[in-house]
């Protein structure tokens, strides 16, 4: 019983931190796309971005263990986690192909396409991660959604 209570606290705080980090990296990422310079603030952004990805991954892992998938909210969060993982994979592919594109194209529509791939890859993964963390956090006290109740 104690262990389960502890897990609830962990999921609560991981999702809370995930909301904060996703919001932080989203805002700094958008600023970076408009002002792509080199600064210490962006150095911090790089670390936060990676940490938020890892944290969201951990949240998916924990929710999978403790979600009550027979309850409708549990089912919904479970479905969301599937979408998040699928979109995360798609975003990473968009980012890597966007970066390869923009590394080899001097100018023109293909370079624009490469940049669009990078921006959309970043936005999809972070926006959906942000959404997943919010949904998990707001439902943490929902009776029946979790197996630790």
């Amino acid at each position, binding site marked *: 019983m104690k262990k389960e209570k502890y897990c609830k606290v962990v999921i609560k705080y991981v999702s809370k931190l995930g909301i904060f980090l996703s919001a932080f990296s989203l805002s700094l990422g958008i600023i970076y796309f408009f002002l792509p310079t080199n600064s210490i603030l962006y150095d911090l952004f*790089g670390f936060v971005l990676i940490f938020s990805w890892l944290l969201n991954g951990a949240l*998916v892992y924990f929710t999978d263990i403790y979600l009550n998938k027979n309850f409708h909210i549990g089912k919904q969060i479970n479905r969301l986690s599937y979408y998040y993982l699928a979109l995360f*994979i798609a975003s*990473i*592919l968009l980012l890597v192909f966007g970066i390869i594109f923009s590394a080899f194209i001097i100018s023109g529509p293909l370079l624009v396409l490469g940049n669009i791939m990078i921006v959309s890859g970043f936005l999809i993964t972070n926006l959906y991660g942000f959404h997943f963390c919010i949904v998990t956090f707001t439902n943490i006290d929902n009776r029946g959604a979790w197996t630790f109740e």
Partner: protein
Amino acid sequence: MHGLLNKSKKVKYVKQFLRLLCYLTFLVGIIFTIVLLFPIKNSLIISMSYFITQITGFLMFLYIPTTLLLLKLTHKNRFKNWNRISILVIGLLLTVLNALPLMSVPVSIQTAETEFSVAYGENWRSDIPQRVNNYFLPTQFNLYNYFLGFPHRDCNVETDVLYYDADGIRLYFDVYYPKGVYSDLPGNGSVIIKLHGGSWQYGDKSLGNVLVLNKYLATQGYIVFDIQYGLFDSGGSSFIPTPDYVKGNFTLHDMVYQIGTFTKLLETTYADRYNANLNSIFIMGGSAGGQLTGVIGLGYNDPYFSGNFSNALTIKGIIPIYPPDFAPSFLLPGDPLSNPLAFEKFTPSNLADPSDPPTLIFQGLRDDLVSIDNAERIRSSLNDEGVDCIVLTFPFAAHASDLIVGNTYSQVWLYYLERFLYLEH
């Protein structure tokens, strides 16, 4: 009821399909990780290593969600959990092994720091004024440039300027130069002549010659000439894009002659057109272009090449990138026994003399095509003549691993390259 059954069947099929995709990703991941870690002398694997070693950070973040997805799709009670444990172990292993190039960045930085301290002294950074430093990358590596790409800088670019039309071929160059006044910028109109790679048979300017770097250097005040040279037509094919109009039955003599023609035109025509500083010239090239960089840069004042190059140019430094230190036999008439002088003069390390310019070499330690011995031979011959030669080595970097500028190797490389150029210009 029938609809519900259909829906659950559909979900089952989708899950099966996803599971298959995940296992496929794992299989590809295992192959890619083997390519990353073990040198295998196979042309397909060598070609794969060009790209894989540059994107391992992304691959790592591909294996994490794949592992999680596969864990979600695999029920806990099946096969007494062994299946889930093996998925977790494989997923974690792939993730950790693909994180190695990112984790090796401090090693590359430490090597570079030591090399620069030996060449310029412990306090080499104090030779760069703060005004100039403001133009440079503030840190050797950052994650946002790695994951979101290195932005294209805004400079003037002129493409496809014809400089050679003879022997049945036409050769063009692209030029990148700064917008506005150069004098305030670190490069101050210094020239960089860039030679692409491709085994002397393939490749092209622009796409094959790190154009993001060309743009970056141009915004720092350098005039970057990215030039073509005649390629040996072996009749073979490659995935490297190569224009047909540069191919012919060319030897290394011809290639050096064509590049020599460019240096003469630079003196008579292009220096004025682009306001270039002929007293500060750098030659840079990768792979076959690195070998030519070594031959031209170190042989510029060699009597063997007398009359081949412009005398008005002062070579301030050369930057061979993973350079072969040998003359390929198919590119020279005869063989080393019947034609020893040519073979000697087209091997960079044989051309070292005290008047040679300082040299900065990029060398991947995972390069199956051109091993570090080549760079070490060039370094040792230059050091014997009292010339500085800095070799920056990168663990896990394969051949051509500088092509994506934001990657783990290129960021560190660029940080020290821009400082080398400033210190020597």
